[in-house]
């Protein structure tokens, strides 16, 4: 298994100070890593660091074996799309191919085909001409997922992808992500809820510093893991 990301003793933060530190973990190709933590523990900040958008304060984050930070497909926690932005589903999905075009001003046949196939794969082909902002939350997430898949087939970073979706749409989206993982795409997903754990094989739990990193089974038997499951069950009541 090829290593894709190695994080050594990294500390993350903003001008105001350190948010989380002592992060040590590796991501191998084909992994399904789930990142857990309370609100404000720095999960989204970690995602930004992995994408190279917000460099770490100290420590090392390495992209290995010719794998580049720009080869990560990304589904943001909240898309800063304005309500009145006119954009069709097709325009958004194909914009994922942009990094492949380089200096070429327009998309070529392969990129158009890639966009069409990806929409087919995610079951949104019939929405292609629709306006993005008139779609349901679940459909919007699928559109952004399709855009991410157009950008890369190596790794997907998802920041709480199911927020705001109804339970059925949540389950569907989790299934879809698991299917993509089986096809060999590395998944790194930030999540709050227990149901996400079902598909993951590795867990990273962060707080002020790293609380746990390792296999899911070990996590479920660890003190942190049990405490997390218990607190989640209380939330549900």
């Amino acid at each position, binding site marked *: 298994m090829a290593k894709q990301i190695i994080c050594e003793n990294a500390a993350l933060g903003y001008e105001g100070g350190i948010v989380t530190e002592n992060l040590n973990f590796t991501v191998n190709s084909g992994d399904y890593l789930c990142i857990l933590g309370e609100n404000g523990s720095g999960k989204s900040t970690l995602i930004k660091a992995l994408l190279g*958008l917000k460099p770490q304060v100290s420590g090392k984050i390495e992209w290995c074996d010719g794998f580049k930070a*720009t080869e990560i497909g*990304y589904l943001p926690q909240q898309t*800063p799309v304005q309500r*009145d*932005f006119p954009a069709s589903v097709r325009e958004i999905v194909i914009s994922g191919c*942009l990094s492949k075009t380089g200096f070429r*001003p327009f998309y070529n046949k392969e990129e158009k085909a890639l966009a069409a196939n990806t929409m087919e794969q995610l079951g949104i082909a019939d929405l292609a001409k629709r*306006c993005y902002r008139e779609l349901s939350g679940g459909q919007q997430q699928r559109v952004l997922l399709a855009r*991410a898949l157009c950008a890369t087939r190596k790794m997907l970073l998802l920041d709480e992808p199911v927020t705001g979706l109804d339970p059925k749409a949540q389950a569907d989206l989790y299934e879809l992500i698991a299917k993509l993982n089986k096809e060999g795409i590395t998944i790194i997903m930030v999540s709050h809820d227990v149901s996400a754990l079902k598909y993951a094989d590795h867990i990273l739990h962060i707080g002020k510093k790293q609380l746990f990193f390792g296999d899911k089974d070990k996590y479920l038997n660890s003190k942190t893991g049990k405490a997390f499951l218990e607190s989640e069950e209380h939330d549900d009541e």
Partner: protein
Amino acid sequence: MMSEMLSKLQYYFTYPFVRYAVVVGLLIALCSSLLGVTLVLKRFSFIGDGLSHVAFGAMSVAAVVGVTNNMYLILPVTVISAILLLRTGQNTKIKGDAAVAMISVGALAIGYMLMNLFPTSSNISADVCSTLFGSTSILTLKITDVWLCIAMAVIVIAVFIIFYNKIFAVTFDENFSKATGIKADGYNLLIAVITAFIIVLAMNLVGSLLISALIIFPALSAMRLFRSFRGVIICSAIISVVCAAVGIILSILFSTPVGSTIVSADIAVFLVFWLVSAITGRSKS
């Protein structure tokens, strides 16, 4: 009646200044509508107005320090402030509308204070009027203005076509573009530079009032009816050019002020589009 109007038009078109006005008017309408969609979406609708205040501030500084040709100061100052305003992307602490308001009010206040502290003889109120309504009325353009305008239009249209997909991606979701290795800052700067030049140029030719209207109205009208980025861009370009043409022709026929007539045509189209979208229910509020 009809033939009378036609012969009147024909008569006017024998004058070169009328032909110049038509060419410049249409080109500026086309360019500003192309840029207008991105500006409106980036919350910079009022940039034309803000920059005219910056021009006023620069003008009073020029009057105080005694620069003979104040264009040497005004042009670079406005272009630089436009670039500074627009270069920042989605991740700024102060959003576009607030930044424009800040710069424009600040420049106005400082300009006015300077004028009071150091009273000069120059006719500043006439100059202020000219930044609002254009230093040269659109009917007194020279052939060099026309060539300048044609050159700018060719550059804007070429940049817009070549970078169309990049402009879309960067305005739609800057972080995603950056994460996948698009040089978003570079494209923001490119958009900023060409917008700055177009606005400053158009401000001098047709005035900031008209340029503000040309940026806002066609874009907003097109966004009433169209749901894709490409649809909105094409539609707003067509609206803008048609309204400019109709406005110029009507102003010749009925001897009304050119700028206001063009803006009125834009308002009329906006109302029609708004009505249509309300009736067909294609626009959700």
